[in-house]
């Protein structure tokens, strides 16, 4: 009976229902997108963190014995897990493999251009900067690249994004609570006479309150489904492009269980948000 009253209330005021669903959808769309971005960014960070490597490139004049000596002394420290020498020839091979579809790029590059290098894996990511400093001391090394910069940049970006995301979501949640509260308030004042009659013929306060609260929950749940659905679909469509862009970082395919988990979490938030906002309105207007 309560459910039927709820459905009738929704059907009889389609514009209010539309407004309520729209704001809820927007809220959950933003929650979904920020979740995707944050989860994606943290797996990129994890990817880099799980590969604490640095590459030292040698000057062209570096002699093989000098390189060998350096390799040995570096291997002797306990901070290094493994060292791999990549000669000019091997570098060219790698280059050819990476660009085999582009003959123009293949023609441009010869063995002489590419430097020989040493790929060093550290045991811990914190040691990278120590190793970096040691390598810098060798005159035969021309350039060192390592992921510490990438990781710290990414981490600070992720932190900033998390803060912005939480702020935007909090504002949207607040806005949806207010809008839902106003809509419920309007509905209650439209039905003031009905409510008075219901009370006079023996309806309990909760009998009158429930349909309004369920209506709020309904808008929340529909909004969560729509927001999640739109966000998931757009992720699905942009998947191949993102996969190409994030070459080698294992994010895709997105697991369906992750998406379901997100939906579950959003549904819980939706129920709480919908119930809370309509309940607040009911307490305010139905004494």
């Amino acid at each position, binding site marked *: 009976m309560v459910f039927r009253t709820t459905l009738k209330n929704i059907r009889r005021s389609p514009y209010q229902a539309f407004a309520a669903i729209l704001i809820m959808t927007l809220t959950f769309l933003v929650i979904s997108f920020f979740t995707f971005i944050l989860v994606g960014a943290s797996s990129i960070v994890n990817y880099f963190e799980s590969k604490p490597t640095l590459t030292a490139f040698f000057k062209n004049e570096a002699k093989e014995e000098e390189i060998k000596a350096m390799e040995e002394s570096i291997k002797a420290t306990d901070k290094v897990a493994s060292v791999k020498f990549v000669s000019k020839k091997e570098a060219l091979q790698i280059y050819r493999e990476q660009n085999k579809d582009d003959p123009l790029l293949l023609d441009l590059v010869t063995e002489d251009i590419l430097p020989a290098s040493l790929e060093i894996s550290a045991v811990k990511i914190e040691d990278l900067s120590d190793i970096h400093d040691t390598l810098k001391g060798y005159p035969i090394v021309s350039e060192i690249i390592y992921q510490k910069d990438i990781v710290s940049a990414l981490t600070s970006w992720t932190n900033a994004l998390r803060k912005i995301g939480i702020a935007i979501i909090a504002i949207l949640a607040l806005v949806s609570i207010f809008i839902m509260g106003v809509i419920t308030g309007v509905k209650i004042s439209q039905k003031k006479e009905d409510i008075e009659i219901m009370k*006079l*013929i*023996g309806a*309990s306060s909760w009998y009158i309150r429930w349909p309004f609260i369920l209506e709020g929950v309904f808008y929340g749940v529909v909004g969560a489904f729509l927001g999640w659905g739109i966000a998931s679909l757009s992720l699905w469509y942009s998947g191949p492009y993102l996969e190409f862009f994030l070459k080698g970082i294992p994010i895709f395919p997105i697991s369906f269980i992750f998406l379901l988990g997100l939906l579950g979490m959003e549904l819980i938030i939706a129920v709480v948000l919908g119930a809370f906002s309509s309940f607040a309105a009911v307490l305010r207007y139905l004494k």
Partner: protein
Amino acid sequence: MIKLEKVSKKFGTGVFVLSQVNILVNKGEFVFLTGPTGAGKTTIFRLITREILPTEGQVMVDNWDVVKLARHKIPHLRKKVGVVFQDLKILMDRTIFENIILPLEVAGVKEKEAGQKAEALLEKVGIINHRDKFPIQLSGGELQRTAIARALILSPLIVLADEPTGNLDTETAFGIVDLLENINKQGTTVIMATHNTEIVGKASKRVITLHKGRLVKDETPNKKEEKKG
């Protein structure tokens, strides 16, 4: 069944709409409550259903102290007392059937059972043909019957009818009184507020007369006993 003891009601304006009223209505009685407009008839009904609280005095309904009644018990009280409101209070966006079945919905009665009960009652009050019409399509007398049917649907112990013949022609008005008398014969206590002296005169029932918030007469047809309130 209903007992008002030294009941006074003062509204915010400072005017006493009831002062020191004593009324005792026994189970199964039919009582007319008369008096001019503003005498306090509707106020008594509102006190009985706990729509308002008295300024002083005690109101008892079926051994419940209405004044001290806990808030959550008010719905139970209102299920014991069926009211035919002066302004009917019929929901205009519901059909006659939906209006009548409403108290059963509120009471949580199963749909099928409620439907059967409502149909039987529509038959009893003589508006079964209007089952699926909307209030706007019905005449005054038919609406009055709708309001009575809604007041009766929960088989209340008491029916309070506030000017149920207010805007009706004499014939229709007597039809309504007949209906209330029939309900009374089946054991329901009925109090009908009216200022229609013709009806009161013909019915030969107990008559309580109010004037400016005071009880001025309480007479039963066989032994005319007068009381000053």
